[in-house]
């Protein structure tokens, strides 16, 4: 959005409090949604839970097309639609709720840097695995992505999306990477997160921030999604403090509030 439009939206956002009927849209949970989209959606849900803002999750097959930026999830609040975690955090801040106000400038810089690390490495690795690894593409992704649509639309849409993602991978230099190199990058990223987290309950000690929500969204999804092989989740499981971190957030912000994240959660403790 341009500067003027953003200021305008902020002003409208600030004018009204958070309504009770706010909804979050994502793709169909059981049959359609993919690893990366699920991670993004979970991150937003975790963030909103941490802010104590009520949100209802609605699953629609065409969520990707409804979104203003083409990415899921997006939230519908009042008469505004905002997509992706970054803009949602700004929007929620305009309404007066923020998790990172207590941080000083250097800590805010660190938080933003680590969020970019997750986006740069974890999210890209998830996209690579979903769309560039032939085994996963053939067995899982194609079938899931096109499942709500009749033949031949399901194949066409899946191939189109695959082509788009491959173009992007090539542009950022991941086109020539092998699966092993990608898994090594994931390992490096998890190691960095684990070292930063240390023995603290959250990344910035006592209170969770949007970084915690983002990391939780991605790690939890990786740990509990069944893929063709367990290599990706194995990389995360090497770090026990990250496992404990995910369990803590799941318990505190979801189970304790009566929200079931996954019906048959697979945890490996």
């Amino acid at each position, binding site marked *: 959005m341009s500067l003027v439009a953003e200021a305008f939206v902020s002003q409208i956002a600030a004018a009204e409090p958070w309504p009770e009927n706010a909804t979050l849209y994502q793709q169909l949970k059981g049959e359609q949604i993919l690893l990366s989209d699920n991670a993004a959606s979970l991150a937003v849900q975790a963030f909103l839970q941490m802010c104590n803002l009520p949100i209802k999750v609605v699953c629609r097959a065409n969520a990707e097309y409804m979104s203003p930026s083409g990415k899921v999830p997006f939230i519908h609040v009042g008469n505004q639609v905002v997509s992706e975690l970054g803009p949602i955090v700004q929007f929620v801040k305009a309404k007066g709720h923020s998790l990172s106000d207590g941080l000083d*400038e250097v800590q805010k810089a*660190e938080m933003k*840097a680590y969020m*970019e*690390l997750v*986006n*740069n490495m974890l999210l890209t690795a998830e996209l690579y695995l979903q769309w560039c690894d032939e085994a996963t593409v053939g067995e899982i992704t194609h079938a899931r992505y096109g499942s709500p649509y009749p033949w031949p639309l399901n194949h066409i849409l899946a191939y189109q999306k695959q082509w788009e993602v491959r173009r*992007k991978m090539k542009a950022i230099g991941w086109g020539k990477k092998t699966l092993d190199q990608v898994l090594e990058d994931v390992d*490096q990223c998890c190691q960095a997160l684990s070292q930063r987290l*240390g023995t603290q309950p959250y990344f910035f000690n006592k209170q969770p921030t949007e970084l915690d929500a983002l990391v939780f969204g991605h790690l939890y999804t990786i740990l509990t999604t069944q893929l063709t092989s367990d290599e990706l989740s194995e990389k995360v499981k090497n770090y026990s403090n990250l496992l404990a971190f995910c369990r803590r957030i799941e318990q505190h912000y979801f189970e304790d509030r009566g929200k079931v994240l996954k019906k048959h959660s697979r945890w490996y403790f």
Partner: protein
Amino acid sequence: MAAPLELSCWGGGWGLPSVHSESLVVMAYAKFSGAPLKVNVIDNTWRGSRGDVPILTTEDNIVSQPAKILNFLRKQKYNADYELSARQGADTLAYIALLEEKLLPAVLHTFWVENDNYFTVTKPWFASRIPFPLSLILPGRMSKGALNRILLTRGEPPLYHLQEVEAQIYRDAKECLNLLSHRLGTSQFFFGDMPSTLDAYVFGFLAPLYKVRFPKVQLQEHLKQLSNLCRFCDDILNSYFRHSLGAFSCVNRNQQQTDFGEASLLLDKKRSMPICRNSPSL
């Protein structure tokens, strides 16, 4: 003695050893870690494919891409991060990701996409250093590659307007520069008194932005207001690159050192040909 390490990269100008960010990152890291690097400037040579520059060549290996080159140097025991704690190592990865996601699109845009900058500065500089007929094709291809990368990672039409994307990437870049400035504070380097990988990356991205003279300068102006980042770049240039600046500067071409090998022979040939450097028909 270690095997000779050769780095192929783009040449320098405006007081910098190299104008290309990635080449500069590797050169800075080599200086910080004490790796004996022989620099081969690929200006005006037919040497290999330029898409992968910088490239490190040893007796049995060819390594491209800064991250891989730095890893390779570390394995050869040239480690600038020896004194960092585990947490500082993690911070390094995070800040490098921040640079690549938030600052790089705007730097690419300033150099390769912004029309005034591209046609008056970037294209003539690169075209004058690439032999004909590649000079007609390669700069255009690099420009399209840069625009492609920005659009694919930030959003393309019809969902986004190009001006919105441009406004957003400059805003992100300015925020990133502010964050870096806050993090650096008054210290000499990002992690205390010794330079490390993160310093090499920040220097590599910031120095071209700081030194190259452009017509359209909004990001440069913003950088110049952050005096600690400017001081950081100047310090590194003065401490680590003072001796080689004479060799690399495009003003002092006549005094180029002989370790450029074949490059200098071709340069001599080129200088006798009446080609105008800033010819628009390039």
